[in-house]
């Protein structure tokens, strides 16, 4: 291991960011660039009777207006279902749906002219929420379904014809009915989870430049390959002619995963044949995507000893007006509701339904927070019903390392009991202020790490500097610095000698995307393999050039250690090629066939989290204050401690948002608080000083040095941990998030 001085070890992106030099999509100015402003539907569900853009087109500074009719021939796009037009044509399905783009010399001119667009709507019956979506005779948000298979994820959506259900997942193990009949206790609960906004500080922004010889898009996208694939199909362009460039991204959390505004921006540029930029406001982004809300019925059967015999869950997810990746959210919710427990009989059903609201999307641990909210509150309810403590009930049912929680999922690669012990230990004795019972625990095991296809190139230069090309997006999590570190360690070169190229599909080999806690493992392993390949080539070249035994050589900073002493890379290249020039190019790739197929089974690794909360409640107002919190995760190996802890803490605090504050509200389909003025997220004041982050390292993951993925686990347990503390100390159970003071006050009042 090499020692670095602290400055050269700092994340290069952090220096750009604190000095204000970091470039985001919104900072770019492409020569000849125009500005687009999106005209959005104000109707919940309606036919468009007429669209008049004449006045807008004639307004000062306006170059053109893109309408649904312009792009109708391009057809629909989607990731799991082809359900989405570039612009609404005959009908609108939610308030906020794009119906036109005014393209002008300046953003001001475009926005001013956008007000002149006139739309005549004929209202249709609304589907405001998931209950309405499933009601008999419900209006249909989409009249028919066109599912895609293996297009973005493995598998596809399983819609039900003639209904609003765009995906149904069912997993049955054993015989739940028989187990329930034989059980000592059967307990059922109902929970709900609100739609919430990602609240990345950078709203969706993209620039597209459509030319004769191809299309370039600059976008803060998490899945450049997904964007590339979708626009290449829409516009009939070869993949090699579509270049996606991703500058720094101001947060994504899944809200910039798959494909968002890029087809629209590309279509605008396609129409005017000039670069077009669309920079959304935060309010626009709140009308672009959000987490799927959920209604969950969960039932557990236990025997006399408190062993779980069966669990069943019926999960209904509100997918909004377009599917995006909502089918995967539903399937994952069903997987993630199992928990780290041994349960012989399971019946897990999840349905994702269309509603006339903002489209659902991936969000940090898709389906996880919804599922774990229900599962872990329910665990405490069952424990209370049978007279066991929450800890004892969990201990009796925990699955051990190596056990499978469902036959089709990889055996657990961690010890949940260890994590549970660590959070309890970190919290120590309860503080006198809150009393002994004001604590709640929650555990989670989730299945990330999808699509094990990754690629990387590592180029070692004659002067020992290194270039890494790969497609993981630097979204604030520090992935570029992580890749640099992996390359530096593998090549035994200083961290500061490695440069990671900005994300650009024109230079980076294919990667599926930045999400699902997969980058460090899948792309990291590809970088490691590429660096090893470069090292091998370099050592082979040196052995030949220096006429040395290959096994006597080793890479050292700037060159090669030989039995005769240090030889610089310069010297080796000079000797080998007769000139002081050249480089070696290492290639690394990972796919489901790698490592003898060992990566094929899902999940690639388990993402784990244990959380323990201590709260106090102002009983007069109902306000909950989180006093102390501990979070533990088994991450295999920590590569960058500051970033890793930041990911875990950030996930917890983001989860504190949906626990206490957040819900994107709709009233009969109308957004109520889709603006940063009315939508509240936690601030530093809400985070307790006493906050423990425990990262367990057993070096047993599939990533470099035994790393597992992380960053999505800690968002899972915080809501149920806080609700369980409320239940334990105050005897009230609030079943729907967020736990606002008013709800808690009403629950406390109903109790007395």
């Amino acid at each position: 291991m090499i020692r670095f001085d602290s400055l050269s070890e700092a994340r290069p992106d952090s220096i750009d960011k604190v000095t204000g030099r970091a470039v985001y999509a919104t900072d770019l100015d492409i020569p000849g660039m125009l500005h687009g402003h999106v005209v959005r539907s104000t109707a919940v569900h309606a036919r468009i009777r007429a669209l008049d853009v004449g006045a807008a087109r004639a307004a000062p500074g306006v170059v053109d207006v893109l309408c649904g009719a312009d792009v109708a021939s391009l057809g629909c796009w989607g990731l799991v279902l082809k359900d989405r037009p570039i612009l609404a044509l005959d009908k609108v399905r939610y308030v906020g749906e794009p119906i036109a783009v005014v393209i002008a010399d300046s953003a001001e001119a475009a926005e001013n002219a956008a007000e002149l667009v006139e739309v005549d709507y004929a209202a249709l019956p609304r589907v405001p929420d998931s209950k309405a979506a499933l009601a008999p005779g419900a209006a249909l948000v989409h009249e028919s379904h066109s599912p895609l298979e293996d297009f973005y994820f493995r598998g596809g959506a399983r819609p039900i014809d003639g209904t609003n259900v765009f995906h149904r997942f069912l997993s049955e193990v054993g015989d739940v009915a028989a187990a329930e009949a034989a059980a000592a206790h059967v307990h059922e609960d109902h929970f709900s989870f609100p739609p919430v906004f990602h609240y990345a500080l950078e709203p969706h922004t993209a620039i597209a430049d459509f030319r004769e010889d191809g299309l370039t898009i600059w976008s803060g996208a998490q899945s450049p390959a997904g964007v590339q694939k979708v626009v290449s199909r829409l516009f009939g362009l070869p993949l090699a002619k579509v270049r996606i460039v991703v500058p720094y991204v101001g947060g994504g959390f899944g809200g910039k995963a798959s494909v968002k505004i890029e087809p629209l921006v590309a279509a605008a540029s396609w129409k005017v044949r000039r670069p077009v930029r669309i920079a959304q406001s935060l309010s626009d982004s709140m009308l672009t995507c959000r987490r799927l809300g959920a209604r969950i019925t969960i039932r557990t059967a236990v025997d006399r000893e408190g062993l779980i015999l069966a669990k069943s869950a019926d999960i209904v997810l509100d997918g909004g007006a377009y599917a995006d990746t909502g089918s995967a959210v539903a399937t994952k919710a069903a997987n993630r509701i199992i928990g780290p427990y041994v349960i012989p009989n399971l019946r897990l059903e999840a349905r994702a339904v269309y509603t006339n609201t903002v489209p659902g999307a991936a969000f940090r641990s898709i389906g996880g927070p919804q599922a774990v909210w229900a599962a872990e509150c329910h665990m405490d309810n069952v424990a209370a019903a049978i007279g066991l403590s929450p800890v004892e009930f969990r201990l009796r049912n925990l699955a051990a390392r190596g056990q499978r929680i469902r036959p089709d999922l990889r055996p657990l690669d961690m010890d949940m009991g260890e994590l549970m012990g660590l959070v309890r230990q970190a919290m120590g004795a309860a503080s006198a202020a809150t009393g002994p019972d004001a604590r709640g625990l929650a555990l989670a095991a989730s299945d990330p790490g999808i699509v094990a296809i990754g690629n990387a190139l590592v180029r070692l230069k004659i002067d020992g500097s290194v270039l890494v090309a790969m497609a993981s997006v630097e979204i604030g999590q520090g992935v570029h610095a992580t890749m640099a570190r992996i390359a530096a360690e593998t090549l035994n070169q200083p961290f500061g000698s490695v440069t990671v190229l900005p994300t650009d599909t024109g230079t980076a080999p294919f990667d599926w995307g930045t999400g699902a806690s997969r980058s460090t493992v899948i792309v990291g392993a590809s970088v490691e393999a590429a660096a090893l390949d470069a090292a091998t080539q370099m050592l082979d070249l040196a052995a030949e050039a220096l006429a040395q035994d290959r096994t006597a050589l080793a890479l050292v900073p700037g060159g090669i250690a030989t039995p005769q002493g240090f030889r610089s890379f310069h010297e080796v290249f000079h000797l080998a090629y007769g000139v002081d020039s050249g480089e070696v190019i290492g290639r690394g790739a990972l796919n489901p066939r790698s490592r003898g197929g060992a990566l094929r089974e899902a999940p690639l690794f388990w993402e784990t989290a244990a959380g323990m909360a201590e709260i106090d409640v102002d009983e007069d107002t109902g306000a909950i204050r989180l006093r102390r919190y501990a979070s533990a995760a088994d991450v295999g190996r920590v590569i960058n401690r500051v970033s890793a802890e930041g990911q875990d803490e950030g996930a917890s605090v983001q989860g504190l948002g949906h626990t206490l504050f957040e819900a994107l509200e709709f009233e009969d389909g109308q957004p109520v608080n889709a603006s940063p003025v009315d939508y509240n997220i936690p601030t530093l004041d809400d985070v307790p000083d006493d906050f423990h982050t425990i990262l367990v390292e057993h070096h047993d993951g599939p990533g470099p040095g035994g790393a597992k993925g992380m960053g999505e686990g800690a968002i899972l347990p915080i809501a149920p941990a806080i609700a369980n503390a409320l239940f334990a100390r105050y005897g009230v159970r609030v079943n729907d998030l967020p736990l606002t003071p008013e709800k808690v006050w009403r629950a406390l009042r109903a109790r007395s």
Partner: protein
Amino acid sequence: MLPAPFQLARPTELAEAIRLAAATEDSHFHAGGTELLMAMKLRLLRPELLVDLKRIAGLDRIAWAEDASVVIGALATHRQVEQDVIVRRHLPALAALCANVANVRVRSAGTLGGNLCFAEPHADPPTLLAALGARLRLVGPDGEREVAADAFILGEFETAREPAEIMTHITVPVPRGPVAYRRFRHGERPAVNAAVAWTMAADGVTIERARIVVGALGSRPQDVGLLERLLAGRRAGEAAEAVAQGLTDAVGEIEAMDDRHGGADYKRHLAGVLITRNIAEAAAQINGATP
């Protein structure tokens, strides 16, 4: 999220600002812009002309006046009020209030006058200023006048100010007794707030006059007259008990809106909680002061 086109005037004289505003049908004064620009960006407001008041000298001055009052320029920002030595010394409750309004960016730009003139119901200063008996100075085309703080806000986004009148300063008499202010919020703005100010008799323990004002929960700050009457002439030590007896009836009379900040019954209950806590704090101030 850009405002519709508008004209901007930046006069340096008060009279000029008034003249400009009076001459244009749809004009607005601009102070910190924290409310105004947001409403303009959302295109809820489309003024033809903005008259910026920040270049008029002296409008943000904070000074001590001979009649034992503090005169706060309407253009003083929350942050100036929070950090001003005179305010801290004589009106600590107001300094503390301003220190907790919004976030540091809004506090650094937003002004006390702008807060009052905008009359967004979920606001803090109007409640406390009403309880303190503050007077607001307005200067317009027809001359100057003074309006009591508790008569200024008429309803949601509605005040006694005429369109071309400028609020120049806020005069706050230094209280002759304990003052307590509390608010409850879940999110950025207060859902309910309450202020208590007692004027003590010469003996130092008898409440000569009590002001109890609640705000944010209705369309404008409201006196809780029933409790004010109950407290007048009572000893500070008996205040808590007296208020406890009248509280249910008193909060029942409060006008409260059902909105995103909570149901009306919840907000009335919260008003009672805040009043009770304020009374305890006020009484403690007296106890602390008397040997």
